[in-house]
């Protein structure tokens, strides 16, 4: 299986940006973060102690609808969790994240956004890193499907996701907390616990250390390791001038 690809800081105007491409599901997400910015005329965004995280999801070939609003709410609460919105300069300001789905199929009306959610989360997180938004930790997410025969499939394709008995998206922080769970379909709790264990091993890698699991495109590489690697690559290129002089 081909692993995802990502790159940081690709846009000129936005404070931070990233692309994230997941070949298994076929989605490419482009994300941009601006923050901290003023949100004038927005009384709801004037939180005296905290920054307001705003998320906007723009589908590739349709106009946004209720599905986008619902997924925005979820993304907002998950990413808002790890943003240190009380750092200096952030209260009463906004951190505005725009996620543009530039590759892959559209999500049908009334369909859950589950197949897209991990890619959106990763793209959002990478853009936040690119914009140097202070974060308490990072996260990694995975989509798991359970087939008729009870087999757990990682990153099922949109067609496979449709025929799955249940679909689960779990986001796990770099410190093993369960940040998000969205499960749909028919399942019992024991199945979910298997899913949870599987998600943990996929996100954190068996060795539970980002440095170890950096094999090239292998299945053993953890998602968290991938996020970390992408960020490190960016730091290397950004500080190339310093590294050379040492």
């Amino acid at each position, binding site marked *: 299986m081909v692993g995802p690809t990502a790159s940081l800081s690709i*846009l*000129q*105007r*936005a*404070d931070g*940006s990233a692309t994230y491409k997941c070949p298994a599901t076929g989605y490419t997400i*482009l*994300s*941009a973060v*601006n923050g901290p*910015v*003023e949100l*004038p*005329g927005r009384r709801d965004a004037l939180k005296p102690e905290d920054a307001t995280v*705003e998320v*906007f999801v*723009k589908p*590739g*070939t*349709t*106009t*946004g609808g209720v599905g986008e609003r619902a997924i925005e709410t979820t993304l907002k609460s998950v990413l808002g969790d790890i943003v240190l919105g009380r750092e200096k300069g952030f209260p009463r300001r906004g951190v*505005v994240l*725009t996620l*543009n789905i*530039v*590759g892959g199929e*559209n999500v049908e009306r009334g369909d859950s956004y589950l197949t897209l959610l991990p890619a959106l989360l990763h793209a959002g997180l990478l853009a936040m890193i690119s914009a140097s938004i202070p974060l308490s930790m990072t996260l990694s997410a995975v989509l798991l499907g359970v087939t008729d025969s009870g087999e757990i499939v990682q990153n099922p*394709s949109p*067609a*496979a996701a449709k025929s799955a008995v249940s679909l689960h998206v779990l986001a796990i922080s770099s410190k093993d907390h369960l940040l998000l769970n969205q499960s749909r379909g028919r399942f019992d709790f024991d199945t979910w616990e298997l899913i949870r264990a599987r998600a943990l091993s996929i996100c954190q890698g068996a060795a539970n250390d980002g440095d170890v699991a950096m094999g090239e495109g292998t299945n053993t590489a953890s998602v968290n390791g991938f996020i970390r690697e992408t960020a490190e690559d960016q730091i290397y290129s950004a500080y190339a001038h310093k590294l050379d002089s040492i």
Partner: protein
Amino acid sequence: MSKEAQLSVAERDFILEALRQDVRLDGRKPDEYRPLDISFGEEYGHVNLQLGKTHVIVRISAEVTKPRDDRPFDGLFNINMELTNMGSPAWESGRSNDLEAAVTHTLDRVIRHSNALDTESLCILKGVSCWSIRADVHVLDYDGNLTDAACIATMAGLQHFRRPDAVVRNGQVIVYGVEQRVPVALNITHKPLSVTFHTYNDSKHIILDATLKEEQAAEGDLVIGINNAGDLCYVSKIQGAPVDAMAIVTKTSVAWEKVKTLNATMDKVLQADLAKRAKVGMADESRATNDREVQPE
């Protein structure tokens, strides 16, 4: 509503003074476009266009729908553009602004109303089903001249796009997947593009393809939509300082030349991409069918 950072007085004076000496900030000639880079994505009709620092992605999509009652022989074609916070921090996602309205209007006039895409060819079954073609313009970076960038990208997308083949059998419309039948190119009747000029110093200086800073310092603008054959489709001089009538005539011939070069560039990139696809096409197609056979399980 947030706004783009205003130009300082010194910056404005500098731009104007430089123009008086026929110098532009980036050293271009008055009638010169910034470097144009067009590339195509994996899907048909996915165009990635960079004009200097202005960066847009256009995606063309097609679906079968019911034609409008008053035009049973016509397909549908729409161009959609929504400015988000991604393109410029000054834009608020989900709220339209003046620029969005202006650019959408121009695109509509230049491409849609000039009938660049033959909508009658989109009809499948009279009054029952037709193709609906949709162009979505995503603005990733905004550094001036969004109109031309979006217009070139949309036209490139329409020429690059292939819709699935569809036939009518016993009143039943059958749509063939990309791997079953060679998809069909859209019927492009002509290739109009917009060319945007900005005027300075009582329209003594008229420049092409202004950057954001140059746009902010401009007195007025002039948009000309013209095709390869030299047919004018759209001229707009809506706001700003008056322009000498003769200037419009001379600039129209400049625009014509530009459109011919732009279309030539576009053709070259399109041909190169199609040749590339043809080469890997066989291998890809066989792989695609294999993938598809696996899926129903």
